[in-house]
């Protein structure tokens, strides 16, 4: 029952927060307490997990005629996602400490938390889809209400684009039900399906938009740029991961034969994302857009790892997902902070911020170094493991993914030069860079996590390895 509460209590609570707290400032404490509880519950779930397979938490609302029931089940992969999500939610709450219009903002955040937990906990396709779509609603408002000047365009584009993609997913689910008679994703046998290829492609396109893979990525830079910085963190850290999670779970593990047949498609799109977005970031002069493209570029790396479909590569992919969340989040937060203070997005208007705000700038540099894959950060471990495992699978030509690493070095270092280092621009000179302690605390936690799991990644890998232990290429989990 507490599993049901994890999903629905936030959804109900969000209404109360919206109507009752009335910007009195309690909203953030309620949110923090809720997310803390969710983290605690996630840890408890992790402790209780069996060695392999799913743990059933409950079945509700059974509609037998349509196999439409809310089945809450978790396995290691979903609990890892739950842990990541709840940690990020806490950090996002901290970094939204001084957000305006708090009641509504935190109500949406709380609503989002319920929906996202639903995504990771439900194994019935229809309910999965319900929560999947439900996450769009708070995001739509968060971008549309709290966003920057082009927020309306970005919010509607994000909503429509991802909604259209969801339609493909829904159709695929229906085809699966038609052909196998069940909506239970743990029960699907690929051999039963009549048109696995069609289903694979529908699912792939649907999830590729969310991940996002080239050429379905264009909603992301707009949404990221216009969203307030903490919401960008949610987008990059949670929403994109949702896409990658679904990609692993449904495109790879559920349809292994098809996935093997079309692994090259994921691989090519992943490579294209990596390089294309890298070049986009190289030319970009808009700070947050640069970070957004860097985010796409790194998700390309995740896609490459996923496409290799081996025990190693899937572990590497999940690690990189987590690493990406921790690395890209502070970049977004700080890019947003710079914009908030200077009022400009352009790198040309900035410069020398290090002199004004050394610690925040240092964390920006640290996270950037993580993004370009410097050792002792999570980015390096991710890149190294993905390189090794994908070469193992596809052959040595895949060392070209290091070109992406060179590109990210180029655009990030050059961004540091233009934004952080050098002489102070006039704009920076007259700007006061002050950050609240709570917001800085969240940045610090991100920085510590990046370095900690970069030096000592074993605890994370212990968790991840168990997810895929015994996995063989082309097999189901």
């Amino acid at each position, binding site marked *: 029952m507490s599993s049901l509460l994890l999903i629905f209590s936030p959804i109900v609570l969000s209404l109360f927060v919206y109507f009752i707290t009335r910007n009195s400032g309690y909203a953030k404490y309620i949110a923090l307490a809720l997310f803390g509880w969710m983290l605690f519950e996630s840890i408890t779930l992790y402790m209780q997990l069996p060695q392999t397979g799913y743990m059933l938490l409950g079945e509700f609302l059974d509609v037998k005629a349509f196999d439409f029931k809310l089945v809450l089940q978790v396995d290691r992969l979903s609990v890892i996602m739950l842990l990541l999500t709840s940690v990020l939610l806490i950090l996002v709450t901290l970094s939204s400490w001084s957000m305006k219009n708090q009641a509504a903002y935190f109500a949406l955040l709380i609503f989002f938390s319920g929906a996202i937990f639903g995504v990771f906990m439900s194994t019935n396709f229809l309910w999965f889809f319900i929560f999947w779509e439900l996450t769009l609603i708070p995001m739509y408002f968060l971008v549309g209400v709290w966003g920057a000047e082009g927020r309306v365009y970005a919010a509607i584009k994000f909503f429509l684009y991802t909604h259209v993609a969801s339609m493909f997913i829904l159709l695929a689910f229906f085809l699966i039900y038609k052909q196998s008679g069940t909506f239970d994703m743990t029960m699907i046998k690929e051999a039963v399906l009549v048109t696995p290829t069609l289903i694979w492609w529908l699912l792939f396109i649907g999830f590729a938009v969310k991940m996002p893979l080239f050429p379905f990525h*264009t909603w992301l830079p707009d949404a990221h740029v216009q969203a307030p910085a903490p919401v960008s963190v949610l987008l990059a850290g949670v929403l994109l991961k949702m896409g990658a999670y679904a990609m692993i779970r449904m495109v790879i593990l559920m349809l292994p034969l098809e996935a093997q047949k079309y692994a090259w498609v994921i691989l090519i799109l992943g490579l294209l994302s990596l390089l294309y977005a890298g070049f986009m970031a*190289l030319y970009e002069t808009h700070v947050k857009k640069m970070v957004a493209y860097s985010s796409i570029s790194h998700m390309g790396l995740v896609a490459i790892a996923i496409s290799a479909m081996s025990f190693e590569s899937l572990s590497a992919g999940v690690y990189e997902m987590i690493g990406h969340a921790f690395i890209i989040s502070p970049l977004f937060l700080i890019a947003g902070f710079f914009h908030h203070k200077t009022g400009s997005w352009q790198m040309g208007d900035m410069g020398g911020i290090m002199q004004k705000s050394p610690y925040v700038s240092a964390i920006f540099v640290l996270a950037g170094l993580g993004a370009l894959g410097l050792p002792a950060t999570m980015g390096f471990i991710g890149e190294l493991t993905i390189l090794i495992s994908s070469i193992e699978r596809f052959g040595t030509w895949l060392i070209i993914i290091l070109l992406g690493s060179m590109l990210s070095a180029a655009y990030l270092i*050059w961004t540091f030069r233009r934004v952080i280092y050098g002489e102070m621009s006039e704009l920076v000179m007259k700007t006061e860079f002050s950050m609240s302690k709570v917001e800085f605390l969240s940045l610090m936690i991100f920085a510590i996590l990046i370095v900690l799991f970069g030096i000592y990644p074993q605890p994370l*890998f212990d968790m991840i390895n168990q997810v895929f232990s015994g996995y063989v290429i082309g097999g189901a989990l």
Partner: protein
Amino acid sequence: MNTQITALLLLPFIGAIVTFVVGKYKKSLAFWFAEIIGITLFVLSFSIFMSWHEPLNFDFQWFTFGATTLPFGIYIDHLSLVMLLIATGLGALDIHFSHDYMAEEKDQARYYSKILFFIGGMILLVSAKELTGLFVGWEFMGLASYLLISFWHQNSAPADAGVAAFLYTKFGDIFLFAAIGLLIYYTGTLDMVKLNQPEINGSISTNIIYVIAVFIFIAAIGKSGQFPLFPWLMRAMEGPTTVSALIHGATMVNSGIYIVARLFDFYVAANALIVVASIAALSAFIGATSALVQDEMKKVLAYSTMSHLSLAFMGLGASSLAVGMTHLVNHAIFKALLFLSVGAVIMSTHHTKDVWKLGGLSHKLTLVALFMGMGILSLSGVPPFSGYFSKDAVLASALLNPQTHGFLSTLTIIAGVLSIAYGGRLWTLIFGGRVRDREIYEKATTPSLFWISLPLGIMAVSTLVLGFYHEKVINFIANQEYIEPHADWLLLFMMSAISLLALLVYYFYRRRYSLREKVSAQPFMKTIRQVLLNGYYIEVMITWFAKNIMVYSVAKSINWSEKHIIDGLVNGMVSLSHKIFILFEKTQSPKVSNQSGTMLLGVVLIVMIIFIGSVL
């Protein structure tokens, strides 16, 4: 694991953090913490050196992903020890020197913290057993150099120099990264000791290990500033001179040579030493010739670093591991000495770097002039300084090796003997002759005996003493009885010729100033001077390529396609739907007659369909 080694590995990193925190609390404490840690590190290295008799090997696992485990071993043999001693010894002296040199700097905590991090990276690099561990240290060096070169980040030039340093070396690094991937794929091991063994490197095809060896060498080119990735080395002069001493003498640039030395048998198996030798010869020539015309003191030394590292590479390339490494060791000491001496000059002349503004300083900076003179002599290869023995051995090896004999050895010898020309020129212009700028001369301060002259003296004495013990050094590095190759007559002959020439030139420079003007006014000479001054325009070319091809062609066109094709299609959907909307709106008439008409039309259509349907 041995506590000494644990301390050696961890102390610099912990120290970097502690120094920063303490330094933020009280500025002056930063130096003392750094000094103590620096000395401790040297003591630790030295005690390991004293008790060392066989390679120390510790195996650890870093992490397991999937079924693959990446090890992170520590392996300390004679090569590592030599590098450790240089890094920690020169590092400690450098920190000591910094007390005065960086006295005016406000941000002491940041400076010393980064310096310790730098030394720590080097220690990690040379103690690593696997390429992964080495790569971590390797990248730490890249990061530390980036941070230190752009230490004065509030100015544009150092910030730009940092960018250059990071990107040039990063370009090399991705090849090392690729090599790691390839090695795991082909051999399944990253253990550098194993890679040297024939059963590993003999098990895969020669072409593949050739490619891997070249990849690793590209990384070495980047780190050690060889052709064509050297421009960052000269840009790096924007950093504090102490940092230059550390980068160019004690740590970073040596790592490229170290990695080739470490994988020497691998290179032999790959037949890749000729690549090393070729690049080395070319770089040595470029460096030595460019050093001749530089106006800035530090740039002379920078090009000389490039040239001398090439000599060390040449030693390796000519199949003489010990010779190359010995030259590296000797170079590290005298180059650190030279940099710090120049640093002392810069400090006492209040940040004058242009060599033409100085002159006659030997009266004021007698000790510095003496020590720097010793450094120059060692650099030039004058016996009995240590530089002489190793340089001589390198040139001899190049001559004796049939692969390098000929063009490559000629280039190398030219480079080797030119060092006396630019070294002498540098010393003479700073200390000798007349005073060119009275004001600077008058204001020049005398450096402190303890903080400045003492470290210089230690290094000067070392470079002299090592000359006397050169056989012991090379035996230790070779880890066996080793007979140096010699080419005494040639080098001595060439050197005396060059010295005579230099004296002649100097004479004309001083006596016939107009002649110099005339010579340099010649278009041909002018062109040569410009080419040399700009390091053969390599940087211009690379920058042009990066800027115009990568950014303004590739990235720009991709940006265009994003805007107009990929996102254009998405946004095009909106205008398309608007067009359809307008089209459809025409069907929607507000007139009742039209509405009724459409209804009836619908009826007619249905009736027709039913008729046709039932007839068919």
